[in-house]
């Protein structure tokens, strides 16, 4: 957490801010989802409350909070109430491990007659050198919330939804894990910051002793691992239970699946978990395949020098802070685009049949992910032997 009072307090505030950032994004995503679906289906969507219908979010939140706190007769009360929280915790915990921007370097300063610093604050909840293993591990716990919700509701539709959720998430977790093995082998690290760091500049690689440069493309992972990127995106859809893979809640078959018996704020917490998973998946896709928080052809140093040369942000601390904000905006831009892809696909593609979903996961995604891994490994071996 830190060595002295300033560091500890700033790190605590930072953690809270990152958690609230995730929670605050949910109502906006709900708005995007509703307006976006209306846009795709040539409807208006919620447009009456406030400008562009934006205050609909507030009205919804108030409605959710003031609904009756209801527990069904057949439910197991403790687990029924615990399930939404269990669905939210993994999403929130994984989000804190994602590096959101360049570190902020604070030069030493005087406060309360004492000199503090210098400090370096990472722009993420906490640092960990095996970021991706942690995210996969904690993310795999998300299924417990759904499973417990379905079982504790005491409703057969809920239980069917929960069993579907567990089978689906476990099947696609394999493809998700394997699809990123290729990119991890190429960059040779589990550390997300190092992964992002090796995707700067223009596209360049060395193969059989020769260096290749492609000046007009950024050095992003998607150009090395197009198949891996596609597999990762599809499994991310399945992992966050979004259409076309939203079988756990298939409303045409199962009423509302695992959250049939949930209403009011409890259902909203499930929503937060789902959108949290979407945000984590989008951020991971941006980090693995789209250069993370880096802006193509713009280096961190050049942005920092620009801010140092301005009058307003001339000090090194302020320049570092502004640089971090600029690169954070870059990551946000990529994440927001990917979140829009989530909404876009949801309202474009129809739902899969359950057996098709399983055969896609086991017979298509998994073999292709294995092929991707082996071919990547062979390429790396060949270029090492010949180079």
């Amino acid at each position, binding site marked *: 957490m830190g060595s002295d009072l300033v560091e500890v307090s700033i790190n605590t505030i930072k953690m809270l801010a990152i958690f609230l950032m995730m929670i605050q994004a949910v109502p906006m995503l709900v708005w995007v989802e509703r307006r976006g679906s209306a846009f795709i289906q040539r409807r208006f969507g919620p447009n009456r409350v406030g400008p562009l219908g934006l205050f609909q979010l507030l009205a919804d939140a108030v409605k959710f909070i003031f609904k009756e706190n209801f527990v069904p007769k057949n439910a197991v009360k403790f687990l029924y109430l615990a399930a939404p929280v269990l669905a939210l915790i993994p999403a929130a915990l994984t989000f804190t491990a994602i590096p959101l921007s360049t570190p902020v370097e604070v030069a030493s300063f005087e406060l309360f007659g004492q000199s503090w610093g210098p400090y370096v604050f990472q722009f993420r909840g906490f640092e960990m*050198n*095996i970021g991706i*293993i942690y995210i*996969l591990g904690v993310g795999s716990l998300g299924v*417990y919330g759904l499973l417990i919700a379905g079982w504790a509701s005491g409703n057969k539709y809920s239980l069917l939804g929960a*069993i579907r959720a567990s089978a689906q998430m*476990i099947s696609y977790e394999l493809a998700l894990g394997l699809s990123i093995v290729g990119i991890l082998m190429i960059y040779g690290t*589990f550390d997300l910051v190092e992964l992002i760091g090796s995707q700067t500049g223009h596209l360049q690689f060395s193969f059989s002793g020769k260096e290749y440069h492609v000046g007009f493309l950024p050095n992003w992972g998607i150009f090395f691992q197009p198949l891996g990127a596609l597999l990762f995106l599809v499994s991310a859809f399945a992992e966050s239970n979004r259409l076309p893979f939203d079988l756990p809640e298939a409303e045409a078959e199962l009423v509302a699946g695992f959250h049939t018996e949930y209403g009011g704020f409890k259902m909203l917490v499930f929503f937060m978990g789902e959108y949290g998973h979407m945000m984590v998946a989008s951020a991971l896709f941006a980090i693995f395949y789209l250069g993370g928080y880096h802006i193509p052809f713009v280096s961190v140093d050049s942005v920092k020098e620009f801010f140092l040369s301005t009058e307003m942000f001339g000090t090194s601390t302020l320049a570092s802070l502004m640089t971090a904000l600029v690169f954070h905006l870059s990551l946000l831009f990529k994440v927001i685009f990917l979140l829009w892809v989530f909404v876009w696909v949801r309202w474009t593609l129809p739902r899969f049949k359950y057996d098709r979903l399983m055969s896609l996961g086991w017979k298509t995604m998994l073999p292709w992910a294995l092929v991707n891994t082996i071919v990547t490994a062979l390429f790396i071996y060949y270029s090492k032997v010949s180079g």
Partner: protein
Amino acid sequence: MSLIDITFYILALTTFFAGVAVIAIPNPVYSALCLAITMIGVAGLFFTLEAYFIAGVQLIVYAGAVVIMFVMVLMLFDLKHEKKAFSKGLFSMILKIGSSAVVLASIFSAIYLTISAKPRLEEVNTDAIVAAKGLALQLFTKNVFAFEVIGILLLVVLVGAIALAKGKGGTHA
């Protein structure tokens, strides 16, 4: 007592009591949930030891696999029937209880041997535990034979499980 000690005691107590609850609670659903808590607690203990890689793998492999058990419990088990099937027939009952006793004895002897063993701290290669690279080097160079044998063993278990599930044995089919 430092913060890391307090974390250790909280995690250790949680793991211990959840582990006891796995076998003490009669309801198999709660039992499976307690097993999940035990696994997460062990992963937390690895985290406090800064063995992040092993902690992550513990979460992915073990805590993830308990979900399957949970579903098995929900879909396939009939506990009353299971108890009856377990104690049916004198000869097979003796055989089953005897094999349980063998498993129990081996677990207790393992615990006894670990307690009586002296720690040899100077020989521990921390790099092989903490960093993924060191662990991989140990696994794929020095201990590659054991690693491959365990792989084959798991394959055998997998094939056996499928063969058992396809035939009609116990209450599982």
